[in-house]
């Protein structure tokens, strides 16, 4: 293979000038250049390709997540929701929430908090009259979630479809809604939500700065921004093992389990392209958030960034 490279490089250089010209012409038409994994594409092409990736992986998304992370992604998502610590009555917007993992965890969490609240209330009801106790039962039964709501927003129809089917299968219906929308241009009014989450989604957004601005816009004052995303590993030995695993094993898993090598090749490349912890923190601060902080999980394989709109 090495022997043939110089010839191809020659071809490439001759073709390169022409390509650059074509590229700039295309750029005028389709937008500035950006990346798709390790390739260079226009923004329009990137959006299209990413849409196709998720359309293709939607049905096997959950199985692949379990296989690739050996189930650890569930722990990461649990930690996110625990960090959120939502109380009943919270209005959550889960962006790029596709198959509903964060939304379902939110509902479970709020339900259990609500149950504990009700139990505590019951204990204090020992010296009330029977009528008063009966009245409070009626009131509480209708609010097992305590008015909490989660809106799952995703740009991809297939992912939403899978999410809705999962919700039906698992029995989630109350306090849950599904909206087709673009993180860069959310279909919601200003100052609407208490919490905004985006789990393993922001990496796939083409204009991250716009998505962060939108997050700021739709959050209420006092609202919280939480982002769970793959990040940079800070331990060099682990980093090498992680790279080996990512590039050698994950595309193979993609081919064997989902019949789709290329989407998973994109996935591991896109992780490398995403800004490291500090840089991302600065981007969040640029969008107007305060008290921006991050927490590394598993030495930085994953990080949770948090910020507040004040």
């Amino acid at each position: 293979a090495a022997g043939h490279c110089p010839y191809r490089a020659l071809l490439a250089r001759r073709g390169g000038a022409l390509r650059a010209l074509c590229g700039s012409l295309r750029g005028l038409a389709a937008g500035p250049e950006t990346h798709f994994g390790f390739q260079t594409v226009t923004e329009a092409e990137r959006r299209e390709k990413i849409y196709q990736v998720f359309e293709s992986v939607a049905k096997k998304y959950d199985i692949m997540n379990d296989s690739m992370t050996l189930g650890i992604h569930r722990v990461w998502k649990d930690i996110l929701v625990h960090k959120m610590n939502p109380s009943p009555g919270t209005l959550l917007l889960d962006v790029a929430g596709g198959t509903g993992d964060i939304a379902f965890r939110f509902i479970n969490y709020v339900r259990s908090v609500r149950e504990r609240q009700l139990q505590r209330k019951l204990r204090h009801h020992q010296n009330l009259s029977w009528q008063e106790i009966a009245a409070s039962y009626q009131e509480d039964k209708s609010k097992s979630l305590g008015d909490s709501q989660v809106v799952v927003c995703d740009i991809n129809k297939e992912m939403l479809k899978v999410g809705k089917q999962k919700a039906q299968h698992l029995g989630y219906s109350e306090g849950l809604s599904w909206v087709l929308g673009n993180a860069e241009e959310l279909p919601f009014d200003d100052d609407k939500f208490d919490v905004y989450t985006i789990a393993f989604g922001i990496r796939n957004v083409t204009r991250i700065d716009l998505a962060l601005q939108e997050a700021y816009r739709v959050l209420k004052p006092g609202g919280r921004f939480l982002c769970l995303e793959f990040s940079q590993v800070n331990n060099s030995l682990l980093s090498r093992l992680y790279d080996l695993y990512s590039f050698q094993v994950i595309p193979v898993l993609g081919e064997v389990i989902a019949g789709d090598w290329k989407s998973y090749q994109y996935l591991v490349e896109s992780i490398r392209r995403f800004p490291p912890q500090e840089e991302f923190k600065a981007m969040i601060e640029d969008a107007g958030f305060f008290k921006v902080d991050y927490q590394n999980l598993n030495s930085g394989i994953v990080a949770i960034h948090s910020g507040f709109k004040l």
Partner: protein
Amino acid sequence: RRRPGRAGIGRAASGGAPAPEEEEEEEEGCSQLYPGHIPTSPLQKALLAAGSAAMALCDPYRHDMVAVLGETTGCLALPNLRDKMKHHPEGYRILQERPRIRLSTLDMARLRGLPDGTLGREYVRFLEDNKVSPDTRMPPKFVDDEELAYVIQRYREVHDLMHTLLGMPTNMLGEVVVKWFEAVQTGLPMCVLGAAFGPVRLSARKLQVLATELVPWAVRSGRNASCILNVYYEQRWEQPVESLREEIGIFPPP
């Protein structure tokens, strides 16, 4: 050996402009040898071989896994086949002209109009009876040589013709018999594994027929026959199946 202007297999058929392919090749470096090629490291090939074998056993409907297994384990058998083709006049012509068997290149009406007993007529009858199409063959992805990629593609496309020549249907029994024949003929580990593990899902009665009559016949024919990839089938549609069997060396089916 790698001719620069050539975009590899399927160029004539796909009719795609060279420019986009060249772009893709540039983006992926020097290593994409034909459209659809995914370069892989030896570790990835080993993992793919193991994974695809396991998946093909668990889910027999994953034909793509059988294909991947063939590609990742064929590193010895494929060059062997290619050399057999190179040293045979008809095989050499096939390697030069790179014919493809697809619905778009076959004149189905003409083949259907041929007399009964000819290769063309029986092939079309086989496709219609078993409700299969030549277009469902997976293109190769993990073969790291453009010519060998064609060889395995040719092997896949010729598979239905094997069914026709051997007179075997596409049920599990028929497929296993064809796999035995192909295993002897090509030496591809995927064929050997398929021949060995395929019978696992058959009933006892079928296993008996398989073991006593069909497999010995398939193995004998496979040994006796000349290389099946050295036959330019597209130029022999009018030839009677029996005459072609005799010419290649396949014994009449039981």
